[in-house]
């Protein structure tokens, strides 16, 4: 769907033309995301910890638990939307980590393996509970006339009025409700990307998707969330 940047061609300054509000945004880069994630001081420390964990060392296990549980709890909670279920999922994840540490072969980063276990456990929990309240995306996606123009015109710019109409916490609640209506896999992509700051490649590795599938799901989920916010503010979603 998308064209990619040819580094050889000259860059084009959008900020000069349109100001910062619609200019490309700096996505939280992979390196920033990695820095924000819990890590032992060096890669060597982590390798040593993992080896001890594989040997059944309980201290190593607890060090890993202390390092990663806050972050994984946040991820699971945002995918599940329920605090009670989250505790159970984190319990299961770390029990699996203890029992199956030997299965970690180091083909991916250890953190990626932990994120994968967490997301899979959360998705499994949602599947079993059948609590997922999915809605049809179509209703909230942009629509176009045959000539390619937006079907409802003018498209209202509510980006600045959002803060006037709602307190920050209310906006977050609106969006959290909309997030809970996403398909669980799409919600996982949004959580890992926009909330955890992972790169598309890292998300693809964590969720066993292709990078292109990650991008498509993320874009569609964002369109849906935008539509939900627009409707909430009294405008057309399309």
């Amino acid at each position, binding site marked *: 769907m998308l064209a990619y940047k040819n580094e050889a061609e000259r860059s*084009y300054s959008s900020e000069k*033309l349109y100001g910062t509000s*619609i200019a*490309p945004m700096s996505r939280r880069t992979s390196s920033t995301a990695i820095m924000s994630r819990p890590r032992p001081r060096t890669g060597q420390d982590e390798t040593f910890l993992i080896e001890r964990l594989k040997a059944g060392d309980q201290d190593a296990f607890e060090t890993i638990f202390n390092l990663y549980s806050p972050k994984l709890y946040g991820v699971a909670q945002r995918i599940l939307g329920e605090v009670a279920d989250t505790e159970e999922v984190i319990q299961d994840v770390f029990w699996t980590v203890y029992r199956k540490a030997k299965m970690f072969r180091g083909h991916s980063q250890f953190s990626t393996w932990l994120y994968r276990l967490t997301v899979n456990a959360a998705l499994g929990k949602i599947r079993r509970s059948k609590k997922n309240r999915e809605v049809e995306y179509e209703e909230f996606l942009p629509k176009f006339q045959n000539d390619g123009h937006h079907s409802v015109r003018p498209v209202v710019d509510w*980006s600045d009025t959002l803060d006037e109409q709602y307190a920050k916490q209310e906006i977050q609640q609106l969006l959290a409700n909309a997030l809970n209506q996403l398909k669980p896999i799409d919600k996982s992509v*949004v959580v890992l990307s926009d909330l955890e700051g992972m790169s598309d490649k890292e998300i693809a590795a964590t969720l066993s998707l292709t990078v292109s599938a990650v991008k498509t799901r993320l874009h569609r989920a964002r369109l849906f*969330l935008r539509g939900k916010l627009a409707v909430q503010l009294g405008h057309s979603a399309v």
Partner: protein
Amino acid sequence: MTKREATAKALTNKSCRQMTDLVFDYLNDKLTPSVKRDFEQHLSICPDCVSFLKTYKRTVTTTRSIQAERLPPKVRENILAFLRKRIRRIGAYLTFLATYFTA
């Protein structure tokens, strides 16, 4: 082709539908310079796409600002206590098996 005709052609190179598909990569600064130029030229004549882009971008920034629940210390202790108990139990079981098979 006159300069004016060329400009007019460039402006119609993208439809609003195509613009919507390109928003994702535009915001990640992943468009080729020529596509980016077309994209921004379309923006300069289409207030609907400017509004769309601003609201899409606002959705992303708002999503990013959502705070996760913190792991409450009590819950953390509960989980750890549960895991320690399980590890002890499996340890005792393995010791039992070792004793049983070596006896």
